[in-house]
């Protein structure tokens, strides 16, 4: 499992130069091909992307950034799957909210029932249904990052 962790490309683009710091997007999905797709889709946008493969590693990653000041000590956006081994997305959201109440959090999931949507919105997060178009994903990410 740890082989997948933080294996996503930390893409070095010259965008975001205005703010002096590249926006940090953390992607959590247990599916290798989905993580790769997110990284490819957002590659041209010039964000720093960290990919993790479970809810637990997502929480660990967020904690490291916030506590140790990696990447400027700020997580700008989290994109996560709901169904993941070890710790699912909902539990990860709870724990992330305990660390920081304001990080924009987007779930990309293939199956969300109304109960899940309610629970998600109670934590100020949102749900996008799979399949998601890359253009749509990029637009949502840009909006959430205030760009």
């Amino acid at each position: 499992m740890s082989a997948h962790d933080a294996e996503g490309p930390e893409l070095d683009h010259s965008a975001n130069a205005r703010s002096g710091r590249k926006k940090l997007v953390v992607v959590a999905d247990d599916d290798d091909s989905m993580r790769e797709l997110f990284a490819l889709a957002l590659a041209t946008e010039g964000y720093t992307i960290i990919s993790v493969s479970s809810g637990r590693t997502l929480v660990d990653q967020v904690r490291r950034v916030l506590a140790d000041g990696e990447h400027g000590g700020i997580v700008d956006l989290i994109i996560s799957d709901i169904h993941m081994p070890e710790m699912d997305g909902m539990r990860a959201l709870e724990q992330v909210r305990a660390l920081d109440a304001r990080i924009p959090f987007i779930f990309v999931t293939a199956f969300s029932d109304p109960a899940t949507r309610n629970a998600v919105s109670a934590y100020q997060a949102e749900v996008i249904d799979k399949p998601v178009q890359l253009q749509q994903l990029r637009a949502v990410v840009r909006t959430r990052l205030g760009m």
Partner: protein
Amino acid sequence: MFVPSPLPRERETRPARQARSPGVLGERIVSWIRRRLTPKNVVPITLVWTLIAMVGDYTTNVDVRFTLVYFFPIVLGAWFRGGAWGSCLAALATAGSLLTDHMTEVSLPTGIVIWNTAGVLAMMLVAVWTIDRLKRFVDAEERERHLAVEQLRHAGRLTIIGKLAAGVAHELGTPLNVIAGHAELLAMTEPSPARITGSTQTILQQTTRMTVIIRQLLDFGRKQGGERVRVNLNTLATTATKMLETMVSKAECELEIVLASSPVEVEANAREIEQVLTNLIINAVQAMPKGGKVQVRTALEYATEVQGRSVSYGCLSVTDDGVGIAEADLARVFDPFFTTKEVGVGTGLGLSVSYGIVSDHGGHIDVQSKPGHGSTFTVRLPRGER
């Protein structure tokens, strides 16, 4: 005849119907009777009613045969064959009664004869009408109960379909998203040759993944069938495990087979039961990422009472000393698409398919597990009497 007092509750709940219905009294009587009569007590009550009428006849010196010969058959006729039948019997009985009177030369004034005949006929017709309404009520209740049971079954099926749909959406949604995303990548930018190769390869991989899921779904929903023959589970376990030896040893696991001393024969489709055993062994191996021992055991189990009949089973169990199953997950392990394995390792259909196969055979599959200590899956197949 007993006339019940008005029923305020009934009036409150159905005022419109009460007001419009011409037979308000009749309605009230029927609804009063309805609430007191059940399919169980209606026949004894009819019999007691007849008995009381007979005693009444006897004590008042009236001909007991009337009740016994006419009234009782008419009531039974109305119950079992319907109102029309009962009414015909009543008419015949009245005619019979008149004829008997005539033949025995009972000389009564004509007015009394007419009065008696009309009274007897009216009494019998009222009895027929009451019994007929009761019978219809009982039948309607029975139909409603059947309907309710059918609806429950339907709801159960819908739950399974709902679960399946959620599973299908989840399992197919991800590869579909990956395929669509890579197609978009290829279409939008001017892709490099490396990107083209990478994306097309990913698309192909994902379509293969979807094909596997669909094939397993078809397996899961397959119709019951296939030839069932006498199968010795000892032989089946030996051959099935032989095929898996390489896989098991590659995963640094050990396979132990403990066979019952006598043949464990069941009526089964050998290929399907082999599939079940293979599934269970693969699961056991996957539950032991650090290696361990898989034990396959066959046994005979006697005398389990099923509906008063003793049934014996051929048992096949697979035990591992792996990670075990969390108590919260135990109830869901046989649900379609339930899996705790990583993506690509399990689709969550193996145990559902196994459950379906074992159920088709009239058997059970159950699981005992202790997190951190391992799990045992036991398949019980009825041995049949032939």
